[in-house]
């Protein structure tokens, strides 16, 4: 019998071709649904999340939210129908990926996930072998019923493990213990989830190189299919101007702000660089391919959904703070749940407030180069050195400084990719491209 973790061929729409700076609007190949509820807030997180009474108990707003989400799905689908024709018209591809992100989407009852997926199938079209990912927290009371989720159509679980170190998990404000991660992976396997990923954090205050090594070892021992390893990033969405009424982020709470200020002081660039190098070494040795700066996959387990982002493929998105892209325009919903619910629960429901931006050709080209270079397959040398390439003027410098290296692609054509040093210092190059 076929190993369920072993996937079929990658969807050609997602894996063939370069990242496209092409400005023509195109129908989406992927759909993101944002579920903004968590049992509790983690101080480092700046995703759009509401917690506490809104997430659980009699005053929970999940029911109202699901209604609104369905309303938005309907309105977005109407717009796509009008623009490109219906899902079965032949001019619109069935979705190759659906992604439930959050927040903690595993707080949703499996029946609601099933109903959402059935609506998605009807209104957007869902490929038979589509990747359907759901983010889950490992805690007992928040990871959901993997078997039921699999039954609802989820075939990939992304677990917010963050660390396998008890003390660090507490420092990070996580509710779960390392043993919960193992339990969650086990339940996912038993429940028939075909692909399991864990998120891990390094550059966490108080995390030694040895502690990070132990976390990598323990995570690998779980036999997961995919690992995302992120440097703890403590940006300031308020300072970036993202938290206004139409912004895609929520204002940072005072407690979180204090936590971050203290954590930033403890972060150490040298330790973080060593931790990244260690991840490259350990995960590579364990047979995972570092296909993106922060992502490693066993064979066939690359995140198709995320590849759509890095290839600049059009994607639809619903839920507060969610971002969509049609190949020409990036659009987002405002982060605030009240405004979201108010717009979509009216009669008739209207699209929620938000914003958008369209890139000029140069901006799109820079974005394509940056996203392309985040991937291990990099960019074709011919394109990277072409007259319109934003990379061309910086190639000699980047090669000379050891940030980029040339290699032969699968088809034998010469390509360029970031070295490990280059990944660590990639912003030095990317900042020259924007």
């Amino acid at each position, binding site marked *: 019998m076929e190993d369920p973790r072993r996937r079929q061929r990658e969807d050609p729409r997602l894996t063939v071709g370069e990242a496209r700076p092409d400005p023509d609007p195109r129908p989406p190949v992927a759909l993101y649904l944002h579920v903004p509820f968590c049992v509790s807030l983690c101080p480092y997180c700046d995703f759009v999340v509401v917690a506490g009474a809104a997430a659980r108990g009699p005053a929970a707003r999940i029911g109202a939210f699901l209604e609104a989400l369905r309303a938005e799905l309907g309105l977005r689908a109407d717009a796509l129908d009008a623009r490109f024709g219906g899902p079965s018209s032949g001019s619109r591809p069935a979705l190759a990926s659906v992604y439930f992100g959050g927040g903690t989407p595993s707080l949703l009852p499996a029946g609601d996930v099933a109903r959402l997926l059935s609506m998605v199938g009807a209104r957007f079209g869902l490929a038979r072998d589509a990747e359907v990912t759901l983010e889950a927290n490992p805690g007992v009371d928040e990871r959901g019923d993997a078997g039921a989720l699999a039954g609802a159509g989820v075939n990939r679980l992304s677990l917010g493990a963050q660390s396998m170190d008890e003390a660090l998990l507490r420092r990070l404000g996580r509710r779960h213990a390392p043993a919960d991660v193992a339990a969650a992976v086990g339940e996912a396997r038993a429940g028939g989830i075909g692909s399991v990923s864990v998120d891990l954090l390094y550059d966490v205050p108080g995390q030694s190189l040895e502690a990070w090594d132990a976390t990598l070892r323990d995570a690998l021992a779980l036999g997961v299919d995919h690992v995302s390893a992120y440097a703890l990033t403590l940006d300031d969405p308020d300072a970036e101007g993202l938290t206004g009424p139409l912004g895609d982020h929520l204002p940072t709470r005072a407690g979180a702000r204090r936590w971050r200020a203290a954590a930033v002081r403890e972060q150490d660039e040298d330790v*973080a660089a060593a931790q990244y190098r260690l991840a490259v070494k350990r995960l590579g040795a364990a047979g995972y391919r570092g296909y993106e700066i922060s992502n490693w996959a066993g064979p066939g387990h690359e995140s198709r959904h995320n590849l759509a982002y890095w290839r600049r493929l059009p994607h639809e998105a619903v839920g507060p703070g969610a971002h969509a892209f049609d190949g020409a325009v990036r659009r987002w919903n405002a982060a605030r749940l009240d405004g979201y619910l108010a717009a979509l629960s009216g009669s008739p429901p209207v699209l929620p407030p938000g914003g958008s931006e369209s890139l000029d050709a140069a901006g799109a080209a820079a974005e394509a180069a940056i996203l392309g270079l985040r991937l291990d397959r990099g960019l074709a040398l011919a394109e990277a050195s072409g007259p319109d390439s934003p990379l061309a003027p910086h190639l000699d410098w980047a090669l000379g400084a050891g940030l980029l290296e040339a290699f032969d692609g699968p088809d034998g054509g010469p390509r360029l990719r970031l070295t490990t040093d280059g990944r660590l210092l990639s912003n030095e190059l990317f900042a020259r491209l924007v």
Partner: protein
Amino acid sequence: MQIPQNRLRNFSIVAHIDHGKTTLSDRLLELTHTIEARQMTSQVLDSMDLEKEKGITIKARAVRLEYTADDGLVYGLNLIDTPGHVDFSYEVSRSLQACEGAILVVDAAQGIEAQTLANVHLALREGLTIIPVLNKIDLPSAQPDVVIEELESVLAIPREEVILASAKEGTGVPEILEAIVARVPPPRGSPDAPLRALVFDSHYDPYKGVVCHIRLEEGTLNDHDVIRLMASGAETELLELGVFRPQLVPVKTLQAGEVGYVATGLKNVREAQVGDTVTTVARPAAEPFPGYQAAKSLVFAGLYPVAGPDYPLLRDALEKLHLNDASFTFEPESSVALGFGFRCGFLGLLHMEIVQERLEREFDLDLIASAPSVEYRINLTGNREQMVVDNPARFPDVGEIDSIEEPWVNLGVVTPDRYIGSLMELTTNRRGTFLTMEYLDPQRVLMHFELPLAELIVDYYDQLKTRTQGYASMEYEEAGYRAANLVKLDVLVNNEPVDALSLIVHRDRAQTTGRALTTQLRKLIPRQMFEVPIQAAIGSHVVARETLAAMRKNVLAKCYGGDITRKRKLLEKQKEGKQRMKRVGSVEIPQEAFLAILRMDEG
């Protein structure tokens, strides 16, 4: 209303900062109905915002009060306000020269301060009648007996002459007015003599040109006269003549003894500087007033716009400000680290601070100042002519220098005696020499030091205030040039000198200073993609070295659908940041690093 000369009184108020000069001025204005109480905006004479904030008077102002005395006659009292800071002692002396009397205001709680002494000495030198006023007697901490004792022993002021007052509450103010009438002699100059009028202040008016504030010593000035400024040689048909009430009120004529203004139409304050003598072209005076000095800069620094494109705005602002304050100088200069800016000369450190703040506030500029410097005289090898340098970056090579001379000052410090040890240490650590000390009262002393001016302008005043909890006060005067064992300390980043950070230091302190600078810089310069040595050197001799490690990580960990726009903006910001950086060789240094290190020097 024309008041006969024998009923004119010209007087100043001399006081230490915060001893209540401005409050007393306000009461005098109120009591003489020059300004009604409800119109008082509080402290009318300090019309610049900055003065109100700093609680000091920067530029002299004058006002004419009409006072009906107890004898039933109306007197014209001209109050000439004086700047209250040590940097402006020349301006103070010219203001005092325009008077016959001075009210000496001493805080009944604080007692005599260094500056009080300096100003009283100036007033006595000008032969002024002193009216001693003990102010703030309403304060619980007032000790009038102690301070009266002090006035008697230090300044030989008879205790029966002292008027007890509280300007805040109005107590004693009527007595002060009567004392002005009774004790200050009227002016004596003849209205028929050739005109001699002293310029004791000036300001620029866009319509009237330079407006000189004058005191007529002799002669008469009519509003159609053609005048000459005897020091600058400028001649002009005057546009307007008037008195200060305190707003400018035109009159037809001013006579010997009176105080007023002439609008000259001149476009440059330099042509009518403080201390100059106004006469008429038709019937010129034989001699100008003695003691005229052109404003002399003692402290020099580069002023640069934080944003390079603001350079033309800075130039315009300096030109405009200079119209009102001819006592600073400026000329263009450029620096690798700071770009295009101006080398400016100031009367002192406070003057520099005031000019910088006015530029920032009134012209909305964001400025960075290089470390302040004094004017060094450099004797070159080979019997060449002496070089005068006020910018460390312009120093000749070590091999060309035979010897260096630097300016010294005589410094007077008044302090409670418990701080004597601390101030001795502070001053001798800065190459100062202790001269003498005298007790003003059982608890307070006046200490005399000699000190290189360069040591004074770094942070001596702040240190003085810190070490004495604000109790000590100081004043200083130039004391000539002396040979010094000085060296130029260069800072090198990746083996390239950073001109804006070059310093002149005493040879013995070169290494300590070098270590402090390199350590600070290592913390302030962001890591580069390669290792960067940061050195301090005298010529080719390195005295301190730090190494900035290479950058290890600058990566966006997450870049998903919702991140792409945000991260691109972050990258754009990084790029803008890089573009704003100053390049020293191949090293990119944010302007903030220079700002931080230069501000540290100031602090």
